[in-house]
């Protein structure tokens, strides 16, 4: 990041190759599976990085910072436009879930996605950072700017809510 601030050639490409895919997956889940929106947010995050690299304090760790920027952008965009597409997908799932062929993996994935979408943004954020991005509680706490205890509490609540959803679906038969 220091190299990027100095304008060193290739610094941006290095950062992009390290973080773009992971950030996209995180943002994708933060905006409830809207890929187009997630791609836009990812683009904006990196564009902001190019245009104003000085906004990053080099005395801090880069990883929590970039995730924080992405998470905030994701939350903001999602609040702004909870798209019809997502609602549509959810309703489609609800119709399909009542069909007998529940073993279909795609449908199960849609169910899981829907269950994640039902979580609040704060709970979903910590759950995804933990189980998708494999971050430690300390790292998550730095990203969401809350104490570690709060992160653990949110994680537990999120897991219990998801477990409840999963119980209704009866995953023992499908997974």
């Amino acid at each position: 990041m220091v190299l990027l601030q100095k304008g060193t050639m290739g610094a941006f490409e290095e950062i992009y190759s390290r973080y773009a895919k992971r950030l996209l997956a995180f943002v994708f889940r933060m905006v409830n599976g809207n890929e187009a929106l997630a791609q836009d947010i990812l683009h904006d995050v990196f564009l902001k990085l190019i245009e104003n690299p000085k906004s990053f304090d080099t005395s801090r760790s880069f990883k929590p910072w970039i995730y924080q920027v992405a998470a905030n952008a994701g939350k903001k965009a999602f609040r702004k436009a909870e798209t019809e597409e997502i609602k549509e997908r959810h309703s489609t799932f609800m119709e399909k879930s009542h069909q007998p062929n529940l073993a279909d993996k795609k449908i199960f994935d849609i169910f899981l996605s829907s269950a994640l979408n039902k979580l609040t943004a704060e709970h979903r954020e910590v759950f995804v950072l933990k189980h998708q991005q494999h971050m430690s509680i300390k790292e998550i706490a730095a990203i969401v700017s809350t104490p570690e205890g709060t992160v653990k509490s949110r994680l537990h609540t999120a897991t219990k809510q998801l477990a409840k959803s999963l119980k209704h679906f009866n995953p023992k038969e499908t997974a």
Partner: protein
Amino acid sequence: MRENIESINEWAEQFAYHELDVDRQATVLSEMSIDEYDELHKTASVFARFLQEEASDLEPNKESLAVLQNASKNKKKLGGFFAVRIPAYQAVAACFLVALGSYFLFGKTETNTVVVEKDVPIYEVVRDTIYREIPVVEYITKTVTKKVPSIERTSIPISTYVPQEDYALREPSETPSMNDISKSFGNTVVSAESLERFKVKM
């Protein structure tokens, strides 16, 4: 109790109940049943698998990367000199030096400065009521009577004729009679006919 729950949650992410050691199993049982723990473990592992698969399917947009790379290159091109940031005092000092240099280079031409002092009247409009006295002219008719002195009449001796030597031979002219002389106020006029006869005879 809260610490236990947090620890159990962390264990559930990685281990099934039967994979825990005896102490941890005891801790779990103090808070929840084995089924509840396994449910947590199952949930964590199912969703973790789902999230991993989802992440692996996603690829950042290549067009977006190209756009970002262009933006990065353009930023570097436009950057350079203009991207250099200097403290404010340095900028102020630079401006001052440029101004000073300009003065010594171009500002030394002597110019006669003529100070023109000019009194500029300042008119102050004072609104007031002015009374003007207009003199009244009175015309007095006065009759003045003046005595005109009477004119004295002078008699002209016309009857006396002294003949001159040269005219001795000549027939004495006939003097105009008194009838021929018309008299008016202040004037004695001889009639033109009498005067002509008189001239001929002379």
